[in-house]
């Protein structure tokens, strides 16, 4: 499994790790679409099923987008990770690879204030937009977003974002 991943993703400067029972591959954010495409198309991997797409906010270390993959043909699994550092959080979409990434990416985008370049319908899905076009109440899963407002609640129950 790990050898296959090394052979397929070798030239994308991957970093390998093990998270409990799965092989974890971290690739640069701008190469994630290519990595996913290869992981799906390669005959030894055949990851045709995107199990889960989640974002994790590591604060100063940027935001990590985690792709849990599964192969319905070969019954194997692995994890792809991409770290987006800095203020401009953007990475390529994987919707051309798996159509099922559509809503998952929309959810991650609104919850973490990141952008998936090339997404066919980059609208918020669980949250909504106000009259000014801002997503309310905001990127709630970022660690700096407070659970309870310090000030009296505003119209949406959350303080205005700076």
């Amino acid at each position, binding site marked *: 499994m790990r050898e296959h991943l090394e052979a397929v993703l070798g030239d994308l400067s991957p970093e390998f790790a093990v*998270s409990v029972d799965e092989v974890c591959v971290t690739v640069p954010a701008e190469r994630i679409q290519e990595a996913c495409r290869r992981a799906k198309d390669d005959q030894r991997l055949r990851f045709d099923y995107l*199990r889960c797409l989640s974002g994790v906010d590591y604060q100063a270390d940027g935001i990590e987008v985690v792709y*849990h993959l599964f192969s319905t043909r070969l019954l194997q699994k692995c994890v792809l990770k991409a770290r987006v550092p800095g203020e401009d959080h953007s990475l390529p979409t994987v919707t051309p690879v798996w*159509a099922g990434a559509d809503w998952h990416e929309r959810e991650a985008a609104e919850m973490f204030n990141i952008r998936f370049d090339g997404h066919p319908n980059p609208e918020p899905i*669980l949250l909504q937009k106000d009259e000014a076009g801002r997503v309310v109440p905001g990127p709630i899963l970022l660690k700096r977003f407070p*659970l309870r407002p310090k000030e009296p609640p505003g119209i949406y129950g959350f303080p205005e974002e700076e």
Partner: protein
Amino acid sequence: MAIETPIRPDMRPQPQPPGPESAAAERHLPVVGSPRVPGLTVVSQEQDLETMEMTINMGPQHPSTHGVFRMVLTLEGERVKKLEPFVGYLHRGAEKLGESGDVEGYRKAMIWLDRTDYLSVWANEHAYVLAVEKLMGVQAPERAEWIRLIMDEFGRINSHSMFYGAFGADAGATTPFMYAFTLREALYQFFESVGGQRMFPNYYRVGGLREDVPVDFVERATRTLETTRRSLDDFDRLISDNEIFLARTRGVAKLTAERAIDLGCSGPVLRATGVPIDVRRVEPYSFYDRVDFDIPVGTTGDCYERYLIRLQEMYQSTRIIEQALKQLPKGPIMGNTPKAVRPPKGDSYQRVENARGDFGVYIVSDGKSPAPYRVKYRSPCFSNLMALNDLAVGAYIADAVMGLGSIDIVLGEVDR
């Protein structure tokens, strides 16, 4: 005493002075360029018949949307041309709340998890505790794991029976709903005797269970199992061969296997297309590798097969429970797990097969805080609902309702 009747204006329709439109209407001819319904455009005028695209809003309060789902349909006649789904009305931020517990946060996160999918609570709790146990490297004692497996399967029967009732109501039959609720009441009384709560037990703990089951657990379970079997036979006899039900479901809202895998569908929606992927079989957790059961698989992927698969799965669940009750050992229900749960730094992902499909919990721990650093729930309905466009576009609006019903959505889980 005489009652004086006030004089009211004449409300009856009054004859209108003849205009160009009414003159045309008398001759049964459409007026070219001026549609009868203002704001709609005429798309074709074949055979003196005006056909117009109509945009209607279904939900979030519509009874056939199973909760607070909303879809905007563009119709041409009775056919759905375009479907735009809207979710998020039930978003409560279960993940954010789960990450925010200050004391015993790992246990508090599970309380919020219970409220997401309110029909398949047991299996979801199982996924959560397994994910944390995997990260900590601990294992529940055998007795606890067997009880978890039994309760998971009872939960599956409960959820599928609710599907049965709601799907029957979608097809126009109200009796299935009554039958389903009779079974549900028996199951909830059993759940109450085990977990102390009917809907949200919060019964599993990292490393075991909250408390042991009642002393007459096996008798109670066997009795509930008999009730379930009788109910399932009734379910089957009631609508499985009903001619109207067959006409409403067979060949309706088909999905292909390739598309289902591409969209990330799981559970009965995926298995109806002929893909035998069941997490209990392909990635066995708990003791599912020690019990004997079959995975019902469809061939065409239509509504009727999704219904049949769920019915068969309930029978298989009774088989699993029967075997598990025979193997249930005596012993402790809590392992040597510290009371304050603090997993080491790292992440883990655990998937289980809940009633709707592949439910996953992704947990990231920073090694020091009492709550998970990040917890993500991969809900099967969220992915299954993406298939609605494939099921509904091109079909009649009544078939789109059947397609939505056959996905068996729980909006609490979609919106989290």
